[in-house]
Every structure is written in C-alpha cells, then in structure tokens.
C-alpha cells in the first residue's frame, strides 16, 4: 500500500475532515502487523491451536501400538467411552455439587460482609480494604495456604482432633476433602464478590434505606425486601460468573491440585481436575478431549438456562 497518504485528518484545502467518519489508514503493512502480532500469536497458540487439537483428539484415537503416527478417526467412540464410565458421572455430580456449594457460600458470605461495610459499622473502611485481597492471590497459593491451615495433623485445625480423633481429616474422609476445597474456593472469591456487591449497595440511594428504617424494617428485613431485589442484576452477574468459574475455572483446578489432588478415593475429582489428570497423567488425550467438549457444552447450556430463565426474574431498573 503506497501512494497518497490517507493518514491526514485535517486537509488544508478542504478544511477539517468529517470527524465521525475519520479513519486512520496506515501507510505500510508491517507496522499494523507488528502491533497486532503479539495478540494474534497469543490467540493462535492459546486458543485456536488447542481448540483444534481438542477437536481432532476428541474424534480420533492413537493406534494402540504406536506405528505410523497417524491417528485413527473414530467418530463418537471416545464420547461413548466417556459416558459409559460411571466414574465420569460421579465426577459430573461432584462438580455440580462443588459449583453450587462454593458459589452459594462465597456469595452469601460476601453479601453479609458487604452489608456490614455498607452500614458503616466501626472499622468497615479497613475491612473493605482487606476483604479484597484474597482475590489477588493465585489459586495454587490459596490451596497451599489452606493445606497448611487444614492439615489434620499439623495445621491450625489440628486442635479439633485433640478433642476427638478424626473430627477433621480431609485425607481420610471424602466429605471433609470436599468441604476443604469448597472453603478454599469460597474464600478466594469472597473478595471479588464483595467488591461488586459493595459497589452495588452503594448505588442504592441512602434515602431508600432510611425510608425503610422509618417504615420499621431492621437490617435483615431490609436486606430481603430492598437490597437483594435492587441488587438483583449484580447478583445475577456474580451468580453466572461464580458458577462457571467454580465449575470449570482454573481456580478450581489449582485448589484441588494443591489440597486434595482429587482424593481421597476420588471424592474431589471434579471435572476440570479429572480432565487434566487423565490427559497428562493417564495420557488419555482422546478421552480428556472428549470430556473437555462435553464440559464446554455443559457451560453453554448452563449459561443459556441462566440467561433464559433466571435473568427474566431479575429487575433491571
């Protein structure tokens, strides 16, 4: 592209060019490419390439005894295998349980904290500052920290086992392990939820709260009658985000990996963790790829249901 410069916004003869239709056109091709390249490379290497590999892996199988290096196209066989596995279905239900519990716990605690800060109880300014921190910590670090806190023999929690042995032992009991990962996830996400809820609560006019106080409602009543309905759009947004993040998010993987590693006895083997461990430890790429696709489909279904049926009941002012 050479020739006349289209770069000018102001033409000396014609006067200022219509600013609404103004377009900056680069003279050479390499400069815009250089600008776009990092982003394009990122997208290519971390999205398109993996996505196409997953697609091909999901529908093909590596010959059992190696050989030609060609993969066999096997159609839906991989999916059939996945669905026939009861372990897989257990993982699905674990994931769902984890996602809903972690979301509920995280949002509930964040909401209570946000309400307290909004009421400007003593010290709320300081707490507002601290509540946000956990979100800035990487999930594996959270997992590690909680592993120390909740280690049954040496962690802070170990004291409960002196009251009665095995009162707390996530290495032995699946339910304890599940509680552990749920608490980790919730703890990390409370900060994030808290920011949005605090911002939302602050946008509710003070006089509304005062009017309801005059009308006789206390803090709990007010939360249900006023703050939750008026905060519904924010809450809905957070619900979608928390559910998807806990269902498939990297945080879930990181936390499970560093606390329970899916155990004991696969009782915290949630879908994201299962996919990664099957692929890279079991080296079953095809099965893992098929599970990934199912997971993606599930997320799409989830989000669709939420927008279709939940959002309708949300008031947007």
């Amino acid at each position, binding site marked *: 592209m050479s020739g006349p410069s289209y770069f000018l916004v102001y033409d000396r003869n014609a006067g200022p060019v219509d600013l609404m239709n103004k377009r900056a056109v680069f003279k050479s091709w390499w400069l815009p490419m250089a600008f776009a390249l990092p982003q394009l490379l990122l997208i290519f290497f971390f999205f398109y390439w993996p996505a196409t590999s997953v697609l091909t892996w999901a529908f093909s199988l590596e010959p059992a005894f190696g050989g030609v290096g060609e993969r066999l196209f096997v159609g839906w066989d991989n999916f059939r295998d996945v669905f026939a596995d009861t372990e897989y279905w257990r993982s699905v239900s674990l994931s769902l349980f984890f996602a809903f519990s972690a979301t509920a716990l995280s949002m509930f605690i964040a909401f209570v904290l946000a309400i307290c800060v909004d009421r400007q109880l003593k010290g709320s300014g300081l707490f507002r500052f601290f509540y946000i921190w956990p979100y800035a910590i990487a999930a594996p670090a959270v997992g590690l920290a909680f592993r120390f806190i909740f280690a049954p023999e040496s962690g802070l929690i170990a004291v409960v086992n002196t009251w009665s042995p095995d009162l707390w032992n996530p290495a032995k009991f699946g339910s304890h392990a599940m509680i552990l990962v749920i608490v980790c996830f919730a703890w990390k996400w409370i900060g994030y939820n808290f920011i949005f809820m605090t911002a939302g609560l602050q946008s509710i*006019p003070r*006089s*509304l709260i*005062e*009017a*309801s*106080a*005059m*009308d*006789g*409602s*206390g803090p709990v*009543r007010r939360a249900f*009658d*006023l703050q939750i*309905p*008026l905060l519904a759009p924010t809450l809905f947004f957070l619900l979608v985000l928390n559910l998807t993040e806990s269902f498939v998010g990297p945080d879930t993987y990181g936390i499970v990996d560093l606390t329970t590693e899916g155990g004991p006895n696969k009782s915290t083997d949630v879908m994201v963790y299962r996919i990664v461990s099957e692929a890279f430890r079991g080296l079953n790429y095809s099965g893992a790829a098929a599970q990934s696709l199912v997971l993606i489909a599930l997320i799409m279904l989830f989000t669709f249901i939420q927008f279709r049926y939940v959002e309708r009941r949300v*008031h947007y*002012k």
Partner: protein
Amino acid sequence: MAEINIRDVRKSYGRTQILHGVDLDFKSGEFVVILGPSGCGKSTLLRMIAGLEEISAGEISIDGRVVNDLEPRDRGCSMVFQNYALYPHMNVAANIGYALKVAGVPRAERQRRIAETARIVGLEDFLDRKPAQLSGGQRQRVAMGRAIIREPKVFLFDEPLSNLDAKLRVQMRVEIRRLHKRLSATSVFVTHDQVEAMTLADRLIVMNKGHVEQVGTPLEIYHRPRTRFVGSFIGSPAMNFFESTVAADGNFVLLDGIRVAIDAALGSANAGNAVAIGIRPEHCRLITAGTANSIPAVVDFVEELGAGRIVHVEIDGQDFAVAMDEGQLWEAGSTVGLQLPAQHIHLFSLETGLRLDDVPSLKRTMKTTVAA
C-alpha cells in the same frame, strides 16, 4: 398527637459543629415549619428527630419520652423525603403498605387500609403502577400515603415539595394543610421556601448557621423580626437596610441629615450610636419630591409584576426597593420623595444584629397590624 421537646441539641461532624444548642418545644398537633437558608442545619435537626442522625449532645423527647437512643421505628414518626425515596421495585400499593407488612398486619386489614389511604391521597387508580410510571405529583402522593398509613404521632417533612413545579407545589401545599387538619398529628416541615413556610405554619422557626434565630407565628416573624437576618430572610422583595445614627433624644434617627421618625423609644443612652434601619419594600411610600419628612431619591428602574410593581430608587448610591400596587407610574431618572412610616421601621444593632426596640411597642405594632 405528640409533644416534641428539644433540649440544647447539638450536632457535630468530627470537629465541625453544625447545630449549636437548639432549644425548641413543639406542641401537640401543631404544624411547625423550620425555615432557613441552605446548609443551616434544618434537615439535620429533622433527621435527628426521626432517628436517622445521631444526636451529638442534648436531648430530644417525644411525648415526654427521651428518644435519643431509640431506633427510628420506635419513635412513632413518619417522614416524607425530598426525593420521595419510593421503593422502585414495588408498586404503589406495596409502597404504601410496606410499613404495615413489616409490622405484620394481616393481609385483609392491610388491603383495607391501603385502599383507604389511597383514597385520601387520591391514588385509587394507580395502585398497580411502579413509581417510575408516575408523575412527580403522584409520586409525592405515594410518599404522603406511605407516611400517613402508619397513623404516626409525628409527621416529618423534608422539603417534600421542592421537586414539583410551581403550580403543583401550591396545590400540594393546600393538600398537606388539609391533611394536617384531618389527622392533626404534630407536623414538622422543613423548607427554604418562605411562601411555603408562611402559608403552612402555625408556628415558624427561622434558623441560620446552626442557630435558631426566631420562633413565632408567621405574622410575628414578618412584623417583628428578632434579628436582622430574619428581617432580610423573610419577605420578598427583601427588606431594605441602611445604616444610620440615633439622634440625641433617642427617638429619631438621622439619615443623611434627615430626621426619620421611629416608633420605638430607644432612650438617650443610645444617642450617637450607629444602628441598622430596616424597612420592607411594601411599607415604603413614594410621594412627590420635596414633601415634608420625605427623603429625596432618584428612580433607578422599575420592575413590573402585573399585579404591582417594584420601584428601585437610589439614595446616595444605595439601592432601595419600594413595592407598590398599580397606580402612579414613576419615570426612571425622576426625583421622588421616599416616605418611611415610623411604625414599620425596624432597628437592629450593627454589631449583634439584634432588634433594638422595646417590648411595649411590640404590642402596639402587633395591634395596628392586626387592625390593618
């Protein structure tokens, strides 16, 4: 119906004090208006009565019971907010009935009272609408309905009419007055609109900078402003002021060498003291130049109001407004005589701003004004 007693109430935010010791008593069933310029602390005082603002010092009691530490809901007050503060996600019926719902009033009874309240405030046809679907005046009515359904002992209004257009404001003013007659609950109404204040009040409280300047009936306050501030704040156009010196006999003041009779006996002790003279534009008279006891003035310009006019004259470079009904036309630039009737002259101390004349003359002036 409840009496409200306010004893030496103060409010500070951090180190700045907003209210400096307010003492007031509102009688049962009275309609009290608190008037004052923006930022003088009217809303703060009202919100302290309501329980929405902590009382820094002093005591507020309602019906003889100290309410300092009571929650808003336990004080028996209801409040109408300036921006109405309607619950946006509830319809009109739910808005009006919310207090009853919180109080656990059974559904049937609630419905009945909502219907009755809606009838009183004229909203029967709008019960299913959301606040966003109402006009300003209708929202105002919902706010009123929400306040009256609880049958409170005390009504608090914080500039409830200031968001309405002029015509609606007059209409709602009348309705509020009518409502008060019907419910006769003690009402405290905050405004910075003096017409609203004068027309609504049984008793008027004028505040300035966190102090109560004067308490009295609207007429008392109009005719006997206790301070220069009250004189200048009440009345439109505003009171004219000029500085002057008390004559030797204490009975006349000298205005640029001209003796102006005053109605108050200041006593010879005040002779030679500088005072501020105040007179309302509607009490000044313009006559032909040179008449005895008149002050020569030059007509500056004339504001036509339709029902009357305001003539601005100049004395020694100082603007002086004279309000008059229709009648003689005064040409700009012409010289006229300004007459200041003695009984309408207010004297204020230059230092303290306090009114200077004595009490006996108060009664006399009050009589003349009532007779007039």
